[in-house]
């Protein structure tokens, strides 16, 4: 099970800013790029005053914090902190293609064109994967069934160390993995019940074929492909190769064997990555595509914006990101507003990541607030204090969509319940309703204006079980530093809460501190923790087993609800597509009203693309395909 935590905004991750992984794999940022040159010796791709000067190169700025650092696509806990949406999507995926590619147009769906294999077929409990015979490694060898088995064997040997390891997931839920022929892999699914869509989108999505050239150790070729016990030594060798100085990657015989459209030319210790087009790439590319792609890291949104605004600088960014606070408000019905006047040579576009924006209550809080969070009336009252539309119109400058349930609702996908889509945001700001809910359940303001439980007990007009008389509605909300719009939104929430007698004290902390806290690394004294969003990648199906099921590893608030668990189980057991969607909708329709988390607005990434460069629509799965980018003549 993997997915990503995305900090609220692009300060941390493209398309939702997110990171991807569990606990340690929080998303970071994607960004802008740059070329440089000392003292006028620029190699910039664009000339001042607009118009590209070099039509073969694109400089892409990473979002703040984003970094390419670790090339080996089999990541374990040892390198968990290098795992991010940027290191994976913007670096590894350029070189080594996943078996199944997600991101089609602007959707997060399976992309059959860019995948290395045709969609899997299921017969009983056996799944068959047919690889496309025309994909080749850069050393001329075909991308074949053995490469998939190699990955599976490595997973069997080292999977328990894997960042995304789940005792019930790959490889535990399959057996008899074999290369049935040169380009066909079969495996038996061991679970008594399983869902085909889930298995394709959340299990097979994790596989990245590895070349035979990697089946070796320092002493020579190895045999991980057939002997699982040999895989540990192979893993150790490859991991060691991946932790050598980044300056060695460009000339590495290991990392130089790629099946993706790009090869490393250089990665310097400052994090500047240059990849060049892999002429042996056998997948689709645009005519007149670019041949050099450069990624450059930044620490702050403002620094990126400064560089974007300086078209005469030594570093020209061709594709970068615009801070939301600097974006002009879009007119009604438009996805973006006018470009800022300081960026006359760029075109503005927005990309909504495939993610869910929310923040959890800590239902296992050990400082006395957990019984309060257990009460549905309280969660209803609290959600009624979140002014999603106000935040979108205000701090987000019109760039955002309200979150309406436990599944991301924008971009609109077939996964979203039609009922929820029709109902929209059922919890718009309603301070009077919140006040009435609390008053009718035994809360009254004390002399300091803070609501205090005056009717303890489990009756319908009481505060609720385990809430003692005199308990107060006082909570601490931690949130990440550095995001202006989030700062404004939590202050507004605290202000609204104070109107009904709830005291929300705010603490801004570094992003990883917030996520570390929310996932229990520092105990259970936290009460509310907002980090932004959860990015659905590389588990692209928004089933609730990752975020809302009892004891799910990414269920930060440890929400637990037996009926919810049963409905989630139904989605995982739904064999066919139609059964699956029915189960998905049933689950969402129930859980949306249970408010297991606080829904907050989802905001897009705002991209600036230099005029004359065509990068096509960017997909919400946060995967990029620079081989499709080209300059217009």
């Amino acid at each position, binding site marked *: 099970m993997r997915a990503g935590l995305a900090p609220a905004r692009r300060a941390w991750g493209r398309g939702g800013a997110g990171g991807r992984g569990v606990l340690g794999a929080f998303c*970071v940022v994607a960004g802008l790029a*740059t070329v*440089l*040159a*000392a*003292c*006028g010796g620029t190699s910039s791709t664009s000339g*001042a005053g607009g118009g590209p000067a070099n039509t073969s190169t694109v400089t892409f700025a990473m979002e703040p*914090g984003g*970094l390419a*650092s*670790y090339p080996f696509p089999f990541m374990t806990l*040892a*390198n*968990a*902190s*290098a795992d991010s949406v940027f290191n994976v999507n913007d670096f590894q995926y350029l070189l080594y293609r996943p078996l199944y590619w997600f991101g089609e147009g602007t959707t997060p769906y399976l992309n059959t064109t860019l995948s290395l294999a045709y969609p899997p077929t299921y017969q009983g409990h056996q799944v068959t994967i047919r690889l496309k015979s025309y994909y080749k490694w850069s050393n001329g060898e075909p991308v074949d069934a053995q490469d998939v088995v190699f990955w599976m064997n490595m997973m069997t040997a080292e999977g328990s160390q894997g960042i995304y390891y789940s005792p019930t997931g790959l490889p535990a839920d399959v057996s008899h993995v074999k290369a049935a022929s040169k380009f066909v892999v079969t495996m038996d699914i061991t679970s008594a019940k399983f869902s085909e869509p889930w298995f394709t989108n959340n299990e097979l999505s994790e596989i990245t074929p590895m070349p035979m050239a990697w089946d070796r150790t320092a002493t020579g070729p190895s045999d991980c492909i057939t002997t699982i016990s040999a895989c540990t030594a192979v893993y150790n060798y490859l991991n060691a190769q*991946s*932790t050598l*100085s*980044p300056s060695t990657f460009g000339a590495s015989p290991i990392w130089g064997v790629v099946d993706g459209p790009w090869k490393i030319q250089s990665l*310097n*210790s*400052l*994090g*500047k990555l240059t990849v060049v087009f892999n002429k042996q790439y056998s997948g689709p590319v645009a005519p007149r595509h670019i041949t050099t792609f450069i990624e*450059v*890291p*930044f*620490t*702050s949104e*403002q*620094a*990126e914006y*400064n*560089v974007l*605004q*300086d*078209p*005469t*600088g*030594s*570093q020209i960014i061709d594709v970068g990101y615009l801070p939301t606070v600097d974006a002009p408000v879009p007119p009604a019905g438009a996805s973006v507003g006018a470009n800022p006047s*300081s960026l006359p040579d760029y075109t503005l576009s927005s990309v909504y990541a495939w993610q869910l924006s929310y923040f959890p209550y800590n239902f296992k809080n050990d400082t006395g607030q957990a019984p309060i969070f257990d009460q549905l009336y309280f969660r209803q009252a609290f959600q009624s204090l979140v002014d999603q539309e106000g935040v979108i119109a205000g701090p987000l400058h019109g760039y955002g969509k309200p979150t309406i349930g436990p599944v991301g609702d924008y971009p609109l996908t077939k996964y979203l319940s039609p009922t929820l889509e029709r109902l929209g945001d059922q919890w718009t700001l309603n301070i009077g309703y919140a006040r009435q809910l609390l008053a009718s359940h035994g809360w009254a303001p004390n002399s300091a204006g803070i609501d205090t439980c005056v009717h303890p007990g489990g009756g319908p007009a009481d505060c609720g079980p385990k809430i003692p008389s005199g308990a107060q509605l006082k909570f601490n909300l931690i949130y990440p*530093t*550095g995001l202006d719009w989030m700062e404004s939104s939590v202050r507004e929430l605290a202000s609204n809460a104070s109107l009904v007698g709830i005291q929300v004290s705010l603490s801004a902390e*570094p*992003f*990883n*501190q917030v996520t*570390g806290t929310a996932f229990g*690394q*520092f105990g259970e004294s936290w009460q509310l923790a907002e980090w932004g969003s959860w990015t659905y990648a590389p588990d692209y199906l928004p089933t609730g087993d990752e975020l809302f099921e009892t004891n799910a590893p990414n269920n930060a608030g440890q929400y637990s609800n037996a009926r919810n668990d049963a409905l989630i189980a139904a989605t995982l057991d739904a064999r066919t597509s139609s059964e699956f969607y029915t189960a998905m909708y049933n689950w969402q329709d129930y859980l949306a009203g249970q408010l297991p988390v606080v829904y907050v607005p989802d905001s897009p990434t705002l991209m600036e693309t230099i005029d004359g460069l065509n990068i096509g629509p960017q997909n919400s799965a946060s995967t990029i395909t620079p081989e499709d980018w080209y300059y217009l003549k």
Partner: protein
Amino acid sequence: MTAYLARRTLQAIAVVVLVTLIVFVLLSLAPGGASVQVLGSGSAHQQFLAAYLTWLGRVLHGNLGYSSRLNQSVSSLLATSLPRTLALTGTSTLIALIVAIPLALVQAARRNSAVDITLRGLTYLWYGTPTVVLGPVLILFLAVHWHLFGAEGPQAPGFIGVISDVRDMTLPVATLALVTIAIFARYLRSSALDSLAQEYVEAARARGAGQRRVLAAHVLRNSLVPVVTLIGLSIPQILGGAVIVEIVFNIQGMGWQIYQAVQDRDFAVTLGFTLVIGIGAAIGSLLADIGYAALDPKVRYTQA
């Protein structure tokens, strides 16, 4: 003089050891398994002293840890980022000295004149303007609007790569230097005024020395004594200012890396760099003492 230097060096070593101890205590206290992240699993169960000595042993062997986030050793990261920070802070400090010395001497020589009042006002303004404000203001006007200089710092690797990129180096250096000029000029002016009131200055004038000669030959050297100390003791502040400047101008120096490491809970980098900065401050202080002694014989005679 030798005994004085030896004693000062021993004191500096003691300070550095103390710095390592403080850093290690902070490491041990940091939440979220910081010590495990830096020292490896099992370290949490070691006795504090044993763990400290293990860590110190690694540090003494040049092993400052490994950043799995950046997939680099802290030492290699330091080798990359330190020259960039030194280029920034060294250049700005040098420029600050070059500008502040004549500025202060002019102010002292023309005390309470219009020139003095104007320069005093300017130095107050620079002194009171935080780098986090000054940097973006300079970018807004000089880079974004008028395109005279780069909106970000040099991106070329290495010390030479940084200092040779004059266009991109100007604004970050100016941001850091203006504040430093203000500090140096204030101290120097005050020190020069003291020197001008000394009898040896009166004697020099009586011997017919002109104003320039008095300032250059008699006032300057004596006025520099407190400034030398100030430079040494300013190293932590200068590096602190460099953190902000490097973030504002996207210069991947030590400050940039520390900021990012703190955000990402990358303890190996945070602690390794903190240690290096602490050592740098101790060395700066030592050099200041040596310079002080060299400039003022009374110091080495009375303390030897």
